Structures are given as C-alpha cells and as structure tokens.
C-alpha cells in the first residue's frame, strides 16, 4: 500500500503489535526500531509516532528496557518484550489474523480483493 493512501488510524491500531513483534525478533533502541519499521514497509513512519507507543507498552508492562553503554557514542536504551508482552502479542496477532481473514473474505466476495487496481464503480455494482 502506498504510504500516502495508508489510513493513520489503521496504523495506530496495529503499531503496538508490530513493535512487540519486532522486539520479540530482536531487542532494539528507539531509533533503530523506527528504522526497522521503515525497512519493513512503513517508510513514512516517524520516530514521534513510535516513542509514545514504546512509553505506553512499557507503562503497561508489555516491554522492559535496559541502558547499554556504547564505546562509540551515547548510552542506548534497548527495549525487549516481557512475558506479559509476549502473551499480548500472541493475543493481538491472533485477533489480527482473524480480522484479516474476515476482511479478505468479504472483499474477495465483492470483487475488492487485495491487489485489485481500483474499486468498481457503483454503476458496475448495480
């Protein structure tokens, strides 16, 4: 999906899950995590969008952090999921997969399957 057509509200809903998933794969510090999200396809995502999510996940006990000293630069705060975070990721992923299955089924039946060039005109549907 092109970045300029992505619904920010949709991203807001799945961002905590994506952050948890990436941190499960490998612990990261804030800026590195943003870079990883960008590499995965969220090219327009800003650090200012991700940091509040990290703060919330940490406040809710889904992730924890540790400061790691660096010989070549400032200390970095690395985030990693907790057991509670792993459970939350599992729940969110299951919920998301169920939802996408439903959405794909509905869109497929109405001729709006993912990859379709554009929605049919209302006249065509009539």
């Amino acid at each position, binding site marked *: 999906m092109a970045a300029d057509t992505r619904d920010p509200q949709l991203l807001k809903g799945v961002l905590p899950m994506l952050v948890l998933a990436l941190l499960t794969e490998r612990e990261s510090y804030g800026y590195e995590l943003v870079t990883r999200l960008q590499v995965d396809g969220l090219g327009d995502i800003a650090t*200012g969008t991700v*940091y509040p999510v990290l703060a919330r996940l940490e406040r809710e006990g889904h992730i924890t952090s540790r400061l790691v000293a660096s010989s*070549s*630069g*400032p*200390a970095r*705060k690395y985030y990693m999921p907790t057991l509670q975070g792993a459970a939350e990721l599992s729940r969110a992923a299951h919920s998301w997969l169920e939802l996408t299955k439903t959405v794909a089924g509905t869109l497929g039946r109405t001729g709006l399957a993912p990859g379709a060039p554009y929605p049919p005109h209302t006249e065509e549907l009539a």
Partner: protein
Amino acid sequence: MNASPSARLGLTDQLRRDWYLTRFLFAMQDYPGKEYKRVRADLRTDLDAAAADVGMRRALADLGSPRHLADGYYGALERERPRYWDGAVVAALLGTMLAYCFLSYGAGAVDTLLAQGGGTVQLHYLGAPLTVTGTEREFGLEFKFSWLGALVYLGTMAVGFALGSRLWRLRTGRSAGA
C-alpha cells in the same frame, strides 16, 4: 554508565536538543508529572542515540514538532486528562476582558459626566459599587470591594477555566476507571 551522553554532543547539538525539550515541556504541561519525568529522560536518551546515528538536526526533524509529539503521548494515555494549562489561559483571557470592559465602562461614564457639565455618580459594575467622578479639574474611578462583584468576576473566570481545561474529563475518567 561511564560517560555522560551529553559529553559526546557538541554545544550546538546540546542547545538544539535542550530547546526542543523545553518546547516539549510546555506542550506536556498537563501530562502526569511522574510519568512526564520518565518520558523526558527516555526522550533525551533516545535523541542522543539517534543523533549519534543520523545527527541531531535529522533526529529532531524525525520527531516532528514538540506539540505533535506531545499529542502522541496524550493519545497513548488510558484516558483523556483535563488540560489545566488551556483552562488557565482561557480564565486569564476572560479576566483581562472583564477588566477591559470595566475600564471602558468607567471611561464611558466619565465622558458622559463631562458632556453633562461634570459631577459624581454612583454606579454598579458586575454587582460592585463604583463611584465615577468627572469634572474639568479631575476625573476618576473608585471601585469598592464587594462579595457580589468578586463572586461574579471570579465565577466567570472559574467557568472559563472549567470549560477551557475540559474539567468534565475528571468525571469521565473516574467513571471509566470504576
């Protein structure tokens, strides 16, 4: 930690970062104090780390405006909180407006007295007694304290504060938390 992160930043970068954090502080006035301290410390650490990767100018640009970033943190709270700072601004504007109206009212009364040949008149402004004098030699406003006047003045400001700060969110939060 062996070295202070700030020690590795140039003076210009430190100033840029601190100026951004100062603006962020103003945007986060109504954020829970204890959590704000942690957010600020984390942000500072993350900024320093990001600056080491891409430079402070780029790191700050990626964060967006402090106000926008603060909105993100407010949005990540479990419930909406009152905006006391906004309420204070509205209350101050209303207080200033009432004071301006008082002066305009008094000046208009003096002008009327002078047009009628001068004299002294007893009036009321927002329930408070007001003595207006206007002659060729002098003019003045004498305002006496009254509970009614104070009640109307402060009451108006209090209503402005309540509306501006969205005080009803306190009740919504309690209901949601119950």
